[in-house]
């Protein structure tokens, strides 16, 4: 099995082969040739779908894992790692999308809360760092700022509305 692993925007291709009840994982270089020695990974299940005890070349590592679509969030030894693990076809689709760019920039609620105030209107020009709206959560008012320069294309939510994590509040073109 071949997988493409994306961490912090860096791409690694690996192949996976069964080795008894464990796995032998080999990194591939840019030409698809094996690079470095295979890594032997034995996976013990502590709790299915949540927690595993790994022996990585005999090194004992606990991994707490959460799956979200193609991405994995792993807690390993006090560090948290967010990675995307894609198959060949998914990786191809991902590469094409990345080349095209994503055009509109949506600004989403980064947490569940209440929109206290929207400080911009459709058609307004905004600059990076400018406060777009104020979101109240956990009894704190949080100023959500523009991460890019642009023009507000759409304001989807208004003051007083409750928003959930990931809801689009406005879009910048």
């Amino acid at each position, binding site marked *: *099995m071949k997988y493409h692993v994306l961490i912090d925007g860096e791409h690694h291709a690996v192949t996976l082969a069964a080795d008894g009840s464990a796995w032998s*994982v080999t*990194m591939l270089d840019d030409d698809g040739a094996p690079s470095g020695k295979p890594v032997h990974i034995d996976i013990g299940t502590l709790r299915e*779908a949540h927690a595993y005890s790994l022996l*990585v070349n005999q090194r004992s590592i*606990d991994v707490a894992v959460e799956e979200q679509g193609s991405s*994995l969030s792993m807690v390993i030894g006090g560090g*948290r790692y967010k990675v995307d693990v894609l198959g060949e076809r998914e990786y191809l689709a991902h590469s094409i999308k990345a080349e095209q760019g994503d055009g509109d920039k949506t600004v989403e609620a*980064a947490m569940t809360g209440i929109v206290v105030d929207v400080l911009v209107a459709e058609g307004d020009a905004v600059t990076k760092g400018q406060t777009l709206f104020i979101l109240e959560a956990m009894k704190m*008012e949080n100023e959500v700022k523009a991460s890019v320069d642009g023009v507000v294309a759409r304001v989807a939510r208004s003051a007083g509305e409750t928003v959930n994590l990931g809801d689009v509040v406005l879009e910048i073109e």
Partner: protein
Amino acid sequence: MRELKKVLIANRGEIALRVIRTCREMGLRTVAVFSDADRNAPHVRAAYQAVRLGPAPVGESYLRADKILEAAKATGADAIHPGFGFLSENTTFVQAVRDAGLIFVGPSPEAILAMGDKIEARRRMVAAGVPVVPGMEDPVTDPELLRSEAERIGLPVMIKASAGGGGKGIRIARTMDELQSLADRASSEAAAAFGNGAIYLEKYLEEPRHIEVQIFGDSHGNVVHIGERECSIQRRHQKVIEERPSPLIDDELREKMGAAAVKAAKAINYENAGTLEFLVDKHRDFYMLEMNTRLQVEHPITEATSGIDLVRWQLDVAAGKPLPMTQDEIKHEGHAIECRLYAEDADNGFLPAVGTVKRLEWPGGNGVRIDSGLYEGMAVTPHYDPMLAKIIVHAHDRDAAIARMSRALSEVQVTGVVTNAAFMRRVLHSEPFQSGRYDTHTIEGHPEDFAPKLSDARRRDIACIAAAMAHTLRSRRGFTARDSAPRSSRSSAWVDAFRPGAAS
């Protein structure tokens, strides 16, 4: 002197559990109160009795003084411990507890009132000769006055809520242009959080360290201090990591600050546990910020080095007993650190996180204490404070304590909700923390120093692990998911027998 037999704890989470534990060690019966969201919480299960208050929102549960008093009456409790937050510094509640003939485990309503309003507190402390930060003595509403006062004190200035606490309502104005809009924001946030939008201005100190002093008073006029706590590792004006002793403080400064704290407490006839918060600037001058008239979140580090159970002292003093130790008898040993585990994404502006705890494992071993209200299956929601638990370590010196905390944090496993455990570990290993030369701006002033860093070798390892994990998760799900199973395997003799058209 009154005898305590049964204590109601008007709080939730780790602090409710922490108070219950001491009560049980003292042979006292306990009553927990809970909202619908907390029916299965550890504090409910640890208590002798538990009473439902209402739905999850705090306004319908933990802030319902009437229901809490009803619960105390129904269960025959003779004292109420408020924990911190919620009603702990609400004088109306404290008075109502007393009027009901119950003991409030904490200071008098008069003392809370004297220190609760920051402006009034400042006036009192100036009169008592305790150094305070240059600033205003009256709340400000007039825009003209706001500007002239900001000019008098000198930029940058802090805009603070009169009734504030916990970092809410605080803004820093660096230019005159932004002063008014920030003041408006602070005022509206304060009005929403405390029902009082009054604000005032204060000088913003350079390289300030937030160092506080634990004090304790009894009803016989005795007041002692139990050393300082260094609380300068903050983000969003809220503490994240605390340690004691402070790397900045020597015995001389410790004595001076301790004496000032005792003087402040005596000036208002303070009883029970309290904390004087000071700012110490780069010139090692100290200024009193405010007094917290309750037990502090970070009290365990004082307990670790002094061997004192502060909750036991609280209960004894509330019952009218004198303090069990004199100032000379209080000694500290070793070094203690506390890390506050928050449900938040440190890599994304420290935004609060929500979720359901899927798996939970705590560190253990020598010198590690966990005060936690978490449990597997718990929903972390915006209803309550995002602080989930506290990890406290104690060791013979600072280096050993740092190593122990780093080890403990690496053993924390929480999934289902993002926590700041990895971030705190990076702080522990950072140059400012290791050297002890940090201040309240260190975290937010140099975020890049605390950002996750991944070496090439480490990233390759993670890539291999991720591939093996993803493959395992996906293939196991493939075999067990019903929808992906072949159709025939889903039928059974029973289904076949009743299928339309089947022979009957």
